[in-house]
């Protein structure tokens, strides 16, 4: 319990930092008042407007005010859509979560066989082939993989749609694109983590008591090798969200990443602020969640 509390406090500090960055964003993009008023506003009207919006108060006060509203999910209205910014971003969350889930599914589906095959065939040709494939996966930019997949599966084979987000088929190509990059790193991690487990005493015991290689792999090795992979998966959440930004735009997928790119293009500051804050909240909670799962899987941590 104290562990959870400690992690929550740490997470709160991270979010506090993120809101400071997000708040600073408003001022780095120029005078927020000049974005909000028509170009031909007179100097006096401008001053009145600044006073009205509270933009003439000292920065720390404005930040506290911003923070107070942010805690209630109030990031102001979108400049473009004239709707509450957080509402706009929040609407898109389920779509991006679906995409991320498919991406993680693909990543595990590719990396688990690839990583274990490589580890089981350590220093044999199959190992090198898996290693090469993983390196290749790390070397392909997501936006280009997206285009290649569209070319093959949408333009030539006509199997899958190249854009949209209404059907489950439209999730496959963006999901594979985002998942492939993570799969490469996960496969390599699983391989090295399995190799470390293979030489442990309990593996020799498992073989000695007559377990087949297959059973020993599933029951003993995988469970232990899963830990680093799992904690890495948490780090991948930021990476997946990052990639979703580009990939959602290419596939015209209606997620929060595409909204963010549109908001950045039109300098829709409240939406950008709401997006970054929400993304950070997701990242922080996923990290805490994984830590808790970690404790459940590994009794050594629970005991210490």
């Amino acid at each position, binding site marked *: 319990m104290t562990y959870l509390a400690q992690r929550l406090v740490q997470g709160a500090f991270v979010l506090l930092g993120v809101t400071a960055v997000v708040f600073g*964003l408003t001022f780095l993009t120029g005078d927020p008042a000049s974005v909000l008023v028509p170009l031909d506003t007179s100097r006096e009207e401008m001053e009145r407007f600044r006073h009205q919006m509270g933009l003439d108060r000292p920065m720390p006060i404005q930040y506290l005010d911003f923070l107070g509203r942010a805690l209630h999910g109030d990031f102001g209205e979108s400049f473009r859509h004239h709707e509450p910014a957080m509402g706009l971003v929040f609407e898109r969350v389920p779509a991006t979560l679906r995409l991320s889930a498919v991406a993680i599914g693909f990543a595990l589906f590719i990396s688990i066989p690839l990583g274990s095959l490589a580890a089981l065939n350590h220093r044999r040709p199959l190992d090198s082939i898996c290693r090469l494939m993983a390196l290749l996966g790390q070397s392909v930019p997501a936006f280009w993989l997206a285009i290649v997949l569209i070319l093959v599966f949408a333009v030539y084979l006509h199997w899958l749609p190249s854009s949209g987000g209404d059907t489950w088929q439209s999730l496959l190509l963006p999901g594979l694109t985002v998942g492939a990059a993570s799969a490469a790193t996960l496969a390599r991690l699983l391989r090295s983590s399995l190799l470390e487990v293979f030489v442990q005493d309990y593996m020799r015991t498992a073989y000695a008591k007559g377990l087949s290689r297959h059973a020993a792999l599933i029951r003993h090795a995988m469970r232990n090798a899963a830990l680093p992979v799992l904690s890495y998966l948490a780090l991948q959440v930021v990476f997946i969200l990052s990639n979703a930004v580009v990939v959602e735009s290419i596939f015209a997928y209606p997620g929060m990443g595409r909204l963010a790119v549109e908001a950045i293009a039109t300098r829709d500051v409240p939406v950008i602020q709401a997006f*970054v804050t929400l993304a950070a909240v997701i990242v922080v909670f996923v990290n805490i969640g994984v830590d808790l799962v970690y404790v459940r899987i590994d009794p050594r941590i629970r005991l210490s």
Partner: protein
Amino acid sequence: MRRGRRSWPPLSVLFGLVVLLLVVITALGADLLAPYGPTTQNLRERLQAPLVGGHVLGTDNLGRDILSRVMFGSRVSLLVGVSAAALAGSLGILLGLLAGFLSGWWDALLSRIADVQQAIPFLILAIAVAVILGPSLINVVLVLAVTTWVSYFRVVRAEVLGLRESPLVDAARVIGAGRLRIVLRHVLPNVSASMIVIGSVMVANMIIFEASLSFLGLGVPPPTPTWGRMVFEGVQYVDSAWWLALFPGAAIVLTVLAINLIGDWLRDVLDPRLRAD
């Protein structure tokens, strides 16, 4: 420490070295080697397929030779990749040494900043900073360095924390070495191997990041050809003229793969603790 039997790098690494060498030669000598100018337009020969009419990789929507543009595009990729990785490295190593060696208050502050940065999706941060600074070569390097220094910082900090308690540093302290001397003469050389390994991976990643920013229209502005922007411009022709987007992307993959192959091998040779097997 080193594996003696590895006297000759494996075939894949030789492949990587050859490809990287070719890319570097292309970047340096693009003026002499490219068959056409990177911005020379010929509207009568627009959207020509590869191998037709003297254009090996075809032409784009403005009739520009794609091979020549890919060759010139290597300049931005290499320049940004290397300088951004170097800048991020200097920043991360410096702050990592600071945090690891001074510890206490400094360490807490820098580590929290790193936490905050890692909670923000990289591309969003990079895009936001790029929008604020405006697109230019130097700004792209700055954006990438500012958003990626954390990777170096974490490793250096962890290694310094480990080294601080090691007999190596104790011994140096006993013979009366000052803090600065210990850091520069005893700690820094011991983290250099992992820095080279991370550095090579970073250069590869930076090339991809630069291309992603370019793809989003936030990279080095036209008319300078960049691989990411070429892919972006080719996307709208993807169903009729696939070569526009495919070749510059393939150039990215080949270059990044070459660097990753070399980096992977460097990890085996230089850093036994990070070794993949």
